[in-house]
């Protein structure tokens, strides 16, 4: 245990995802001891990011405007929507340049352990977007793990009552993984080989 504020810093850093107590301690001492390290810049970016960044009203992607740059782009194909768990998945799929339609970010996956049910995800918003018959294909690109599969099954059943083609990314993605870690080639192939599920 360190005295007062040093320990507070370590504790705060340790609350961040992927940072254990040892890493937290290392980062804290880097901040304390490295003169060239611009503390006020980091602090202001942290504050700014919270103030300025919000979630696109249409798709749930991160943006600094009311809607994100993808939703505002008239060249995109309005007949297809790709459903992902997180905003970072949008970035991963955009890198493949395989997909020209719009996105819908759910904000997670169904997981009772974490208290997340369909009502906690942006599923209602998705149904609203599908109401006017413009969209003809929904591509479900949730993570290839248990919760991602469960969410995909849920969406498939929910959408089966609509006259919309529903596809799921082809397997070949590393099982048990995160979409964002799949390399571009694999993810690109998964898009090409997507299969109709309803």
């Amino acid at each position, binding site marked *: 245990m360190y005295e007062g504020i040093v320990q507070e810093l370590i504790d705060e850093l340790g609350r961040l995802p992927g940072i*254990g*107590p*040892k*890493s937290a301690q290392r980062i804290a001492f880097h901040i304390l001891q490295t003169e060239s390290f611009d503390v006020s810049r980091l602090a202001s970016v942290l504050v700014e990011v919270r103030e300025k960044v919000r979630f696109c009203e249409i798709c749930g992607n991160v943006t600094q405007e009311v809607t994100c740059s993808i939703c505002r782009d008239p060249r995109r194909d309005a007949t297809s929507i790709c459903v992902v768990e997180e905003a970072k998945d949008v970035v991963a799929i955009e890198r493949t340049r395989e997909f020209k339609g719009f996105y819908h970010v759910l904000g997670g996956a*169904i*997981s*009772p*352990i974490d208290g997340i*049910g*369909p*009502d906690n995800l942006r*599923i*209602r918003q998705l*149904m609203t977007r599908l109401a006017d018959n413009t969209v003809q294909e929904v591509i479900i690109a949730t993570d290839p*793990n*248990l*919760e991602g*599969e*469960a969410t995909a*099954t*849920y969406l498939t*059943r*929910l959408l089966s009552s609509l006259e919309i083609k529903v596809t799921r990314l082809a397997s070949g993605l590393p*099982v*048990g993984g995160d979409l964002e870690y799949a390399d571009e080639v694999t993810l690109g192939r998964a898009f090409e080989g997507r299969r109709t599920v309803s």
Partner: protein
Amino acid sequence: MRVSSISLRDFRNYAEADITIEQGCVVLVGSNGQGKTNLIEAINFLATLGSHRSSTESAMIRTGEDAAIIRVHLAHDDRQILLEAQLNREGPNKAQFNRSTARLRDFPRYIATVLFAPEDLLLIRGDPASRRRFLDELIVTRTPRLSSILSDYERALKQRNTLLKTARFSEASVGKLSTLDIWDDRLATLGSEIMVERQRLVRDLAGPVAAAYESIAGADHHPELLMKESVLLPLGDSTIDQTTQAFLAVLNSNRATEVERGMTLYGPHRDDVEFSLNSLPTKGYASHGETWSFALSLRLGAARLLRAESVLGDPILILDDVFAELDASRRERLASAVSDFEQIFITAAVVEDVPAALLQHVFRVERGTIARALK
């Protein structure tokens, strides 16, 4: 397949240990608490990604250190493989295959072990969980793909149980679609793969276990294995699809009870395998000697099954403290039953416990150091 060298860094009580080993029988002797089991645990870990005595990986890292390293050279025919695992106290474990980055969970594809230990008595006398563990470890060795199915099943079960506990409050969902249906679906899809694999295993194991029993007990007591499933399946072989349907039907008709109890009452996590001798269940009927013979036969039968079907050749046999538990005749019969395996690791507190025929390469283990014993 055999191990041709082992290096340990900060693994259990070993700060640094490097040994090269030959084909045949490797005997580790030393007093209690010197590191014999620790050494074979390291080898077994690469094959099973688990430990037979602790569930936390950090217990394997030497006290006060941040990381443990296990490096093992394997020889299979004239092929050489180097497996290296680094267990980190903080952050994910790392793995290398022939010096390039690999996934630890792929290691069981390259190394297979069969471990005999005094705790094996629990296979007969213990609760169903120990028998399920026996089956599932073998299933993963036979079909490595099942490893992720098993862990996904565990997780699906947790998810479903959590939902069952809160089901009464959370059922009015979007479009009135029940999320319990979704988890039933996951559970049944994953669970049926496990059920079908266990059925196949028990069927294929019957012959080798019977033969092993006769060679160890010196008598034919007609040993049998029978799956006892919570989801009743039609007699004969069921496909995964039929099993999924049967599983779903059971979940469906028992939903009210499960919601009330707040837990999943059907599925491979509730199943058991029953062992019998001369048509009497071993549990509650078998004598002490018969119990030992059956436990050893399960391991030996498993080893022979793996030998017969694995591309890796013979599994590495590990006999941890087993001979001390056996009477003289069982010792001799076990020794001759295992003697034709490519490589065997044996641990014993005193060398006299080990049948002479197996004393081929003897090492002394003392306070985390290993030295070749002089003949």
